[in-house]
């Protein structure tokens, strides 16, 4: 028999797993789109990366095209991905020294990147960006110490996205500003009952980290203290989850398996599937919800406690220039254009929330149509309801978003009580924040 030849296994196979981790880490920066350099036709080539979905991509491409028209000597290459994938890729690119010249960053990651000197200071030097047109307090959200490491690329506020068409069909009135959590419970219960159990009133907010932040702010507590520790206790979290569990068990909020799909983005979530009539989200995601949904959607402020909404003006995302960019001046020009130029505002619409520059924002608000108008009107009405913007979240915040989803799974699938789960959350979150 000659079979022994084939029967001899190749010991190389177990090594393959390792290769996944290691080669990826080493090879990605090599293939990734590196910093652009001058090209033969004399044009400066910039690269710009962001996260988002197809509808945001369309708006962003249009804004970039407008920039290239004004600056014919600059060519901008763009790339985008979904939020989670984007952050993974960006970290790898930065480690390899090959991030894009202009990068969109999340507020939750800002401290981490700034502390490792990845982001260029935009307050002076070759990469100076004039932010005098922005609300100074809002522009300061991009500061790390005295350095302007990022410029807010849009202002957003928390909201409840409501499916008006569905509510009309069910004969349930659209909730009004100033409603309470009890009102929300009644409303959601009503939707559940009148739809014959087919539609939950609201997508279970228990897995949403920023929803919990607003819940806390309404009760006068911050998510983080000034020195980056938690401003709440295990009991606060257990209280939030107990409320959500009560909603879910009565059918007022979505079942666990539906809540799972929230991570996949508006196109696959319960609101788009008609399994929920309302959903917690930032208003900067509204246009993506509209793109994913045939029904008419409206924005409603969060339920209140003693009149407090716990909403605040948040940078939906920020723009930074990579510290190792070969073209800091041109990169800064692109950033500047994207946050202050009215042509950028026209192209971007409300795909990232309100436009940063105040004068342009006002013009834009006055002439907005469709989804952009809904967001502009919502922000204008919500302005008086906003709390003070907290300082930038500490390093590790982005991981807590996923931790929240994971631990709440244990609650929503009925494997742990809200009390036990919140204890487990505090323990695991502690490890992340200490890191």
């Amino acid at each position: 028999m000659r079979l022994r030849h084939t029967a001899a296994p190749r010991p190389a196979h177990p090594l393959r797993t390792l290769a996944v981790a290691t080669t990826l880490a080493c090879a990605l920066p090599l293939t990734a789109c590196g910093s652009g350099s001058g090209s033969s036709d004399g044009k400066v080539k910039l690269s710009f990366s962001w996260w988002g979905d197809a509808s945001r991509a369309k708006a962003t491409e249009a804004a970039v095209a407008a920039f290239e028209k004004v600056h014919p000597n600059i060519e901008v290459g763009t790339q985008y991905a979904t939020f989670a994938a984007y952050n993974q890729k960006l970290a790898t690119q930065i480690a390899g020294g090959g991030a894009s010249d202009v990068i969109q960053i999340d507020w939750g990651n800002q401290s981490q990147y700034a502390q490792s000197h990845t982001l260029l200071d935009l307050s002076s030097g070759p990469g100076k960006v004039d932010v005098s047109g922005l609300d100074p307090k809002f522009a300061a959200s991009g500061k790390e110490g005295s350095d302007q490491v990022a410029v807010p690329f849009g202002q957003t506020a928390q909201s409840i996205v409501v499916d008006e068409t569905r509510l009309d069909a069910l004969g349930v009135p659209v909730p009004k500003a100033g409603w309470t959590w009890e009102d929300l419970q009644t409303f959601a219960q009503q939707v559940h009952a009148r739809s014959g159990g087919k539609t939950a009133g609201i997508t279970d907010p228990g897995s949403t980290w920023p929803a919990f932040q607003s819940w806390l702010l309404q009760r006068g507590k911050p998510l983080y203290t000034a020195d980056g520790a938690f401003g709440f206790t295990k009991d606060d979290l257990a209280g939030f989850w107990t409320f959500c569990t009560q909603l879910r068990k009565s059918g007022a909020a979505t079942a666990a398996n539906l809540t799972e799909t929230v991570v996949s983005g508006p196109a696959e979530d319960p609101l788009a599937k008609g399994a929920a009539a309302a959903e917690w989200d930032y208003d900067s995601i509204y246009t993506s919800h509209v793109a994913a949904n045939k029904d008419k959607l409206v924005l409603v402020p969060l339920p209140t406690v003693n009149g407090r909404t716990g909403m605040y003006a948040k940078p939906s995302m920020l723009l930074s220039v990579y510290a190792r960019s070969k073209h800091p001046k041109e990169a800064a020009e692109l950033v500047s254009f994207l946050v202050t130029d009215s042509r950028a505002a026209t192209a971007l619409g409300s795909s990232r929330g309100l436009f940063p520059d105040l004068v342009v924002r006002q013009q834009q608000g006055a002439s907005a149509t469709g989804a952009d108008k809904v967001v502009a009107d919502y922000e204008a009405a919500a302005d008086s309801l906003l709390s003070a913007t907290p300082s930038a979240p500490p390093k590790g915040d982005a991981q807590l978003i996923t931790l929240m989803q994971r631990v709440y799974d244990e609650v929503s699938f009925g494997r742990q009580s809200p009390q036990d789960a919140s204890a487990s959350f505090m323990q695991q979150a502690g490890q992340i924040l200490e890191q």
Partner: protein
Amino acid sequence: MTPASRRRRPARPGGVADRTAGYVFLLPWFAGLAIFTVGPLVYSLYLSFTRYDLLDAPKWIGLANYRRMFTSDPRYFHAVRVTLEYVVVVTPVKLGLGLAVALLLNRRRRGVGLYRSLFYLPSLLGTSVAVALVWRSLFAQGGAASDGLSSLGLPGTDFVNDPSWSLPTIILLSCWQFGAPMVIFLAGLKQIPSELYDAAAVDGAGFRQRFLHVTLPLLSPVIFFNVLLETINSFQAFTPAFIISGGTGGPADSTLFYTLYLYQSGFNDFRFGYASAMAWVLIAAVAVITALMFRLSRLWVFYGDGGNR
């Protein structure tokens, strides 16, 4: 192996020049091996003793990663359990299916070539992202599987997003891809001399006896090879869990495979030192299991040359 075949391989007469030329031609391969395999391997061994978040330089922390893994990380043990469950179910079921279908297809029949290709097809698509995506939409709520069950009056579930069904869904996907071991089984079956069957038939052996006393012993090296290969592959399963759970290992960590947790530790939590340590523990574990299987193979694998290794 017969002595004759050994004798056919003459000692190489080539001189130094020949050998040098050989190495020169091998250079590109050696360079690739050093840069893309050995280099990262050694580096990851170093990283496993450090804390490294990609942004700041690695910081030496000795055995802390390994200690944490074995003493204070319940998720680690959970991932090990999920992976073992997967390996223990997938390997035998997949091989059993592969062998059964190979036996069916090992006959002269019209269209048998077509069947072979059809059964092999899923394996070709095997590790692809597209199949995992299709699987997800088939078994998610509103997908063909749950709708089909409900139309039969059975309770349809959201298999993908239900923690008690998500792992079985992935196991099913893997078992469906039994084509690769099947093809190897087929090749092995073809090698069994038909005289042995004829002789057995003359002695009055029925199908069962022929299978037990002719097919199985002569096929045992191939079975061993397949068991080894599938076990190692199953330990490394990643893509289906990653795609079907959307990268989370969810719902409720029910599909948190070892490799997926390794990936998350690195790319979500930015603990590349910890992830490297996990990779090395996996290598060590697979090496031990492989060695054990070789040891055990002496008891049941029959090499036709009468050698008793």
